C-alpha cells in the first residue's frame, strides 16, 4: 500500500522566531517528511483565519524575510528534510522574483509555493526556479478548468499543490469519489501532488494514500500548538506522529462541522488555508 507523505506546515516567526524553529524540528522529529515554512505576509488572501492570525502575530513580533531565509537554512541543514517556502507574491516581488528564488535555493529550500503568482502572472518565477534548481510549485483548485490545468502541466512542475475539499464528519473523515477522481486527474499530469486544505486526521491520510504524493497539514498543527503548554514540542511531535500512523489517535479528533465538497456548501470558511 503506497503511503501518503506528510508535509508539515508552520508559520515562520510564530509564536516567535526561536519557537518556530523548535516547532519545525518537533514536527520533523514526529515524522514529517517535508517541512513547509510560510513567510508571513500582511494580507494573506489565500489563508483561513487560523493561519492569518499566526501570520499577524509573527509580523507583530518583527518577522523579517532575511530571518525567514536564515531559518530555512537552519532547518534544511539540521533536520535533513526537504523544506518548501510558502509565501505571497508581494514578498517575492519585493526582492525580485529571480533574486528571491536564488536566495531560497541558496538557503537550501527544495520548493517554493506562491499562490498569487500563477503561471501566467508569475513575474518569471517559474523560469527562475528552473535556473536555480528550486521546485516552484503551482497551486490548483477543483474549479481549475481543464484548459488551465493543461497550461500548468505544460510547465512540467515537479510538484503540484492541490487544494482539496474534504467531507468531514466529526472525527471520521472520508474523501468522496469526486475528490479522488480530481486528484487522480492531477496526478496524470506527471507531477507529485501535494494535497492541502483541511487535512487533519490519520483517516484522511489513509484515504489519500495512492492518490496524492503528500498531504500538507497546517491549521491542525497550529491548533495543536495553541492547545499545548510549555511542552509544545512533545505535543507537535505527537501530532505529526499520529498523522503518520506512528502514535495513538488522540489529539486529532477535534469535532468539526460537517461540510460537503460542493460549492453551495461553502458559505462558511474552513479553519484551514484556502488556495
Amino acid at each position, binding site marked *: 500500500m503506497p503511503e501518503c507523505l506528510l508535509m508539515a506546515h508552520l508559520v515562520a516567526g510564530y509564536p516567535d522566531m526561536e519557537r518556530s524553529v523548535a516547532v519545525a524540528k518537533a514536527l520533523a522529529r514526529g515524522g514529517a517528511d517535508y517541512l513547509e515554512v510560510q513567510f508571513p*505576509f*500582511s*494580507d*494573506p*488572501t*489565500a489563508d*483561513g*483565519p487560523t493561519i*492569518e*492570525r499566526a501570520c*499577524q502575530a509573527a*509580523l507583530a513580533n518583527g518577522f*523579517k*524575510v532575511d530571518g525567514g531565509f536564515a531559518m530555512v537554512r537552519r532547518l534544511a541543514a539540521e533536520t535533513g528534510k526537504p523544506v518548501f517556502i510558502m509565501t*505571497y*507574491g*508581494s*514578498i*517575492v*516581488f*519585493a*526582492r525580485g522574483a529571480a533574486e528571491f528564488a536564488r536566495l531560497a535555493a541558496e538557503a537550501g529550500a527544495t520548493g517554493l509555493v506562491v*499562490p*498569487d*503568482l*500563477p503561471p501566467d*502572472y508569475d513575474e518569471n518565477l517559474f523560469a527562475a526556479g528552473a535556473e536555480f534548481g528550486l521546485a516552484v510549485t*503551482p*497551486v*490548483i*483548485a477543483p*474549479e*481549475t*478548468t481543464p484548459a*488551465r490545468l493543461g497550461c500548468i502541466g505544460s510547465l512540467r512542475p515537479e510538484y503540484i499543490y492541490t*487544494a482539496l475539499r474534504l467531507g468531514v464528519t466529526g472525527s471520521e473523515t472520508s474523501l468522496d469519489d469526486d475528490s479522488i477522481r480530481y486528484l487522480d486527474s492531477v496526478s496524470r499530469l506527471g507531477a507529485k501532488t501535494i494535497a492541502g486544505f483541511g487535512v487533519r486526521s490519520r483517516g484522511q491520510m489513509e484515504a489519500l494514500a495512492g492518490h496524492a504524493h503528500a498531504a500538507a497539514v497546517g491549521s491542525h498543527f497550529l491548533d495543536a500548538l495553541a492547545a499545548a503548554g510549555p511542552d509544545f514540542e512533545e505535543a507537535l511531535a505527537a501530532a505529526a506522529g499520529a498523522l503518520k500512523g506512528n502514535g495513538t489517535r488522540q489529539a486529532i479528533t477535534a469535532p468539526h462541522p460537517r461540510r460537503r465538497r460542493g*460549492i*453551495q456548501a*461553502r*458559505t462558511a*470558511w474552513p479553519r484551514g488555508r*484556502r*488556495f
Partner: protein
Amino acid sequence: MRFDYFGEYGGRYVGETLRPALDRFAAEFVEAWADPEFHARLATIRKTWIGRPTPLFFAENATKALGGAKVYVKMEGLAHTGAHKINNAVGQVLLARRMGKTAVIAETGAGQHGLAVAAAAAKLGLRCRVYMGSVDAARQRPNVFAMEMMGAEVTPVESGARTLKDAINAALREWSATFPDTHYVIGSALGPSPFPEVARRFQAVVGEETIRQMAETGDAIDVMVACVGGGSNAIGFFSPRLDSDSPRLVGVEAGGRGMGPGENAVRMSGGASRVGIAHGYKSRFLMDGDGQVLGSHSISAGLDYPGIGPQLASLGESGRIEFESASDDEALEALTFFARHEGVMFALESAHAGAAAMRIARGMSPGRTVVVNMSGRGDKDLFITAKALGRERWIEYLKSEADNA
C-alpha cells in the same frame, strides 16, 4: 480592450480558486458591453433612479474669494446614496443579474460603497452581503444602519487592522468559495483585472457629463481636479481626456497628519511608496522593503487605503496625471470654505480635491478655469467633521441625545 495591464501595473495576481471567476467575469463583461439592451437598462436606471446627470455649477463666490481662475464644481455627490460609488455599484449589480447571479458581496471602508451596493441590490433584487472592518463599522454606524435597512447583511471583519484592506481580503476569500452564484462588486478602480477597467467604464459617465456641461458654459477647461483613494472617481472624471494632452489632470492624495510613515495615504511619492503586488493587482503601495503592506491614515475613510488603482499609477508615472496631496486640516478648511461661499458641503474625500483646487486656482490668472469633482456630499461625515470643527459642542449634543434616549 485594455483589461490587463496599464504600463507595468495591473494584472490578475490571484490564486487558482479565484481564477475561473475572473476569467468568466471578464468574458461576460465584454459581452454585456457590446449589448445595446444592457446600455439601455443602464441609461434608464441612471436617469430615473441615480438622478443623472448630476449638476455642474460655477462657484462664483469662491472664485471671487480666491482671486484667480474660475472654479467650477461637478456635483457628483448629488447622485443617489451620496457619491459617485453608485455608478459602479449599479453597473456591476446589473452585470451580476445578467450573469444569472443571485447575490452580490462588497467590501466597504466608510460604508459609501457598501451603501451603494446595498441600494442597487435592493433595487435589482439580489441578496447582498457587505464586509466591513470592525473598526470602520464602529466609527461609521449610520451607514451600517442604512445598509441593514436596505436588507444587506453587514459582516464585521476582525482580522488584520480591521479596516478597508482587511475587508477586501475577506471579500476576496468569500468570493473564491461562492462565485458560482455570487458576484463581488469591488468598490474602486483596483483589484485583479478586469475590475479596474470595469470601474473606469462605469465611472466615465462623470467625466463625459462634465465635458458636455462645461461646453454649455462656453468656458474651456484648463485643469480638472479629483481626489484619489483607490481612484474610481478620478479615473472616471478624467476618463474622456486621458488620451489627449490637455487639460491638466490633477489627482489629490490624502496628506493626512504629516509625511511620516503611517500618517498619510500618499502612494505616488514619499519614502514608503513602492511598486508591489497586493489585493490581486500590481501598483504603487505603501509597503516596507519586505513587501508588507503598511498602515495609512486620512481623516477621510475613503482615502485611507495603502494602494492606488493601477491605471492612475501608470498615468502618474507617464506624467499625464499630476499628483498632489492635501492634509487633513486643508481638507477641513476646504469643506468650510465651500460651505460658506457656495452652500455645498463636500465629503471629506472630495474636500481634498477642493483644497487642491483652491491652491491651483489662486495661482492661475482670472479667466482660466479649474473644474473640481465633488465626488461625494458631506452629510455622511457629520460625526467626524462636527467633532473636528467644534468638539465641545458636539460632545455636549451627543451627551444630551444619550440622556434622552
